[in-house]
C-alpha cells in the first residue's frame, strides 16, 4: 500500500515529439556563426550579418521543427519568426533616423550662437568662407524657434476651447442626435485631411478675406488649428466618456446646475487625460512643415508679430536649408544648420511626448479604490 512513485527520467508522453527548450538558442548560435561565415566571403557589415543570420535562423528552426514536430507546429514557428522579424524591421528605421539626426545634428547644435542668433544677414559668402578657410559656421535658429513657439501657441489658443467645448457637447449634450453623429463622423474625417490641404485652406481663406498673398504667422496658426482641433476633440471625448456617471448624478442630486457640474466635477476629474491629449496634439502639429510653408513663407530675421510679415519656423527652416542652401556652391554649412534644427525639433517633440505621459500620471484623479 505504501508504494511510492519513483521519479522516472523518461520524457513525458506529453512532450514527446517536441523540440527541446534549448532548440531556438542552439539554432540561433549556429545561424550567427553561419551568417558571419557567409558575410566574411562577400564583405562584412553588421546589417547584412543580422539579416542573413535571421534568415538562417528561421529556415533552420522551421526545418528542424517540420522534421520532428510535423507541419502544424512548423507553421506556428514560421509565423512566430515572421512576426518577430516584422517587429525588428520596424525598429530599424526608428534607430536609423535617431542615429542619423544625432550624428549630423550635434555639430550644429554645439555651434556657439546656434540657439541665440538668426539667419538675418547670413549670406552665401560667410558659408563659402567657413568651408574654404575653416571659419566657424555662422547663423542660427533663434528666429525659427520664436516662430515655432508663437505659431504653435496661437494654434493651441484657437484649438483648445473649440475642441474641448465640442467634446463636451458630444459627451454631455449630444445624446446621439443626428447633429452629434454628424460631428463625430466629420471630426474623424477631418483627422485625415492632408496637412498641405489644411495649409491651402488657410491660405485660400485669408486670400479671399484679407487679400491675395497674405502670409503671416496667424494664417499658419489657423492652418495648424484645422489639424489640431480633431485631435483635441477625439482625446478629450474619450476622457470625458470615462468619467463615472455617479459623479454627475451626485452633483445633480445636490441640485447643482448642469453647466456647473460639467465645469466643477466632470472636467476636473478628466483634466489629466485632457491635458495629456492636448500636449500630444501640440507635439503633432509642432513638426508640421507643409502648412507653414504655404501660409507663413520663410523669413530669415526675427519676427515677433504673428499678424504681419513672414515668419520662420523650425520645420520650414530645415526644409529650406536643405532644398535651397544659403550658399549653393557649398551646401555643407546649410546642411549642418538643418540637422542641428532637426535635432532641436526632435528633442522638443520627445519632451512634449514625455510631458504628456507625466501629466497623465501626475494629475490622475485619486480613485480611492
Amino acid at each position, binding site marked *: 500500500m505504501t508504494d511510492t512513485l519513483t521519479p522516472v527520467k523518461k520524457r513525458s508522453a506529453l512532450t514527446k515529439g517536441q523540440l527541446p527548450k534549448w532548440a531556438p538558442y542552439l539554432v540561433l548560435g549556429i545561424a550567427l556563426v553561419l551568417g558571419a561565415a557567409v558575410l566574411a566571403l562577400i564583405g562584412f557589415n553588421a546589417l547584412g550579418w543580422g539579416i542573413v543570420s535571421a534568415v538562417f535562423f528561421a529556415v533552420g528552426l522551421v526545418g528542424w521543427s517540420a522534421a520532428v514536430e510535423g507541419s*502544424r*507546429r512548423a*507553421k506556428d514557428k514560421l*509565423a*512566430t519568426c515572421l512576426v*518577430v*522579424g*516584422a*517587429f525588428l524591421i*520596424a525598429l530599424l*528605421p526608428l534607430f536609423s*533616423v*535617431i542615429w542619423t*539626426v544625432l550624428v549630423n545634428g550635434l555639430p550644429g547644435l554645439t555651434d556657439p550662437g546656434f540657439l541665440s542668433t538668426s539667419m538675418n544677414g547670413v549670406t552665401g559668402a560667410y558659408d563659402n568662407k567657413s568651408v574654404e578657410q575653416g571659419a566657424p559656421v555662422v547663423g542660427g535658429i533663434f528666429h525659427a524657434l520664436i516662430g515655432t513657439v508663437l505659431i504653435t501657441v496661437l494654434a493651441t489658443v484657437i484649438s483648445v476651447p*473649440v*475642441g474641448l*467645448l*465640442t467634446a463636451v*457637447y*458630444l459627451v*454631455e*449634450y449630444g445624446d446621439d442626435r443626428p*447633429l*452629434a453623429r454628424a*460631428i463625430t*463622423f466629420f*471630426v474623424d*474625417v*477631418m483627422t*485625415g485631411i*492632408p*496637412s*498641405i*490641404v489644411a495649409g*491651402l*485652406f488657410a*491660405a*485660400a*481663406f485669408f*486670400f*479671399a478675406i484679407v487679400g491675395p498673398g497674405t502670409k503671416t504667422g496667424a494664417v499658419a496658426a489657423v492652418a495648424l488649428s484645422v489639424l489640431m*482641433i480633431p485631435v483635441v476633440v477625439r482625446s478629450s471625448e474619450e476622457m470625458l466618456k470615462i468619467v463615472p456617471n455617479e459623479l454627475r448624478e451626485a452633483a445633480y442630486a445636490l441640485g447643482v446646475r*448642469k453647466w*456647473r457640474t460639467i465645469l466643477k466635477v466632470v472636467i476636473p476629474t478628466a483634466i489629466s487625460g485632457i491635458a495629456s491629449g492636448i500636449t500630444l496634439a501640440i*507635439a503633432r502639429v*509642432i*513638426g508640421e*512643415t*507643409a502648412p507653414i*510653408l*504655404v501660409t507663413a513663407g*520663410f523669413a530669415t530675421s526675427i519676427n515677433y508679430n504673428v499678424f504681419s510679415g513672414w515668419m520662420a519656423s523650425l520645420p520650414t527652416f*530645415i*526644409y529650406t536649408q*536643405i*532644398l535651397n542652401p544659403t550658399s549653393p556652391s557649398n551646401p555643407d554649412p546649410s546642411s549642418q544648420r538643418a*540637422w542641428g534644427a532637426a535635432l532641436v*525639433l*526632435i528633442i522638443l*517633440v520627445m519632451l512634449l511626448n514625455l510631458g504628456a505621459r507625466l501629466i497623465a500620471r501626475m494629475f490622475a484623479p485619486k480613485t480611492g479604490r
Partner: protein
Amino acid sequence: MTTTSLTTSRGAGRAGDKVFSAATLAAGCLILAVLFGVALFLVIQAFPALVASPDKIQGGEGFFAYIWPIVIGTLIAAVIALVIATPVAIGVALFISHFAPRRLASGLGYVIDLLAAIPSVVYGAWGAAFLAKEISPAYNWLANNLGWLPIFQGPASATGKTILTAGIVLSVMILPIITSLTREIFLQTPKLHEEAALALGATRWEMIKMAVLPFGRPGIVSAVMLGLGRALGETMAVALVLSSGALTASLIQSGNQTIAAEIALNFPEAGGLKVNTLIAAGLVLFVITLGVNMIARWVITRHKEFSGAN
C-alpha cells in the same frame, strides 16, 4: 406659500446653462463649418484655374493634362508605401498583442508610437541624406537583374532619389498608424474565441488564423485605408526625397511627382493663375483623401457593433 421653488429657479443658474450649452453647440457647429469652409474656399480659389483657357495653365494643355500625371504619381507612391507597410504593420501589431511577453507589450507599443512622433520633415531629411545613398546600390542590382520588368527599367538613378525611395520613407511614416489601429482591434478579440481555439489543440498561429484575423478583418481594412489617406497627403517625405520629373513607369529612375510635393515645391514662389492651379490641385487631393477616409470610417462604423473599434 408659493410653489415656485421646485419648478422655477432664479436667473443665474439657468442662464449659465443656456449660455454653456449654446457655446458647446456653437463649437461643434464651427467644426462642421470649418470642414465645409475648407471645401468652399478651395473651390472658390481653384475656380479660375478650372475655367482658364488651356494655354494659360502650366504645360499649356489645360488643367486636366496638368493634374493627371501627378495624380498617378501620388497613387504610385501611396501604393508602394501600403505594399511595404501593411504586412509589417500587421506583424508588429500581432507581435505586441499576442506574441510579446505581457510586461513588455505596452512598452514596445510605445516604442512603435515614437515612430509617429518624429516630424515628417525629419523623415524627409533622413530619406534624402541617408536612405537614398544607402539604397542606390540595390537599385543598380535591380536594374541589372530585373531590368526586363517595366517598373525596374534601368538605368537606375545614381542618387537614389526615386519614387521607390519616397515610397519606402512613406511606408515608415504610415507604419505606426496602421499598427496602432490594428493592435487595438486584435486586443479586442473575444477571449473566449481565443481560448476555445487553444483548448481544441490549435497552435498559436492557428488560433490567430481562426479567431483573431477573421474578427479583425474590417478593422485591418479600415486601418489600411486610413494609412492610405495619410500616404496620399504626405508632403515632406516626397518633396525632399524625390527628384521629380515627368511620369515614368520605372520606379528606380528619377521622375514622377505627387500632388502634395508639387504644391509644396511651387506654392511659395507662385503668383497669379499658378496659385489657383496649385489650389485646384490641392482640391483634387482633398477630394481623393476625403473619399478614402470616408470609406474607411464607414467600414468602421458598419462593424462597430462587433468590434467596438472607433
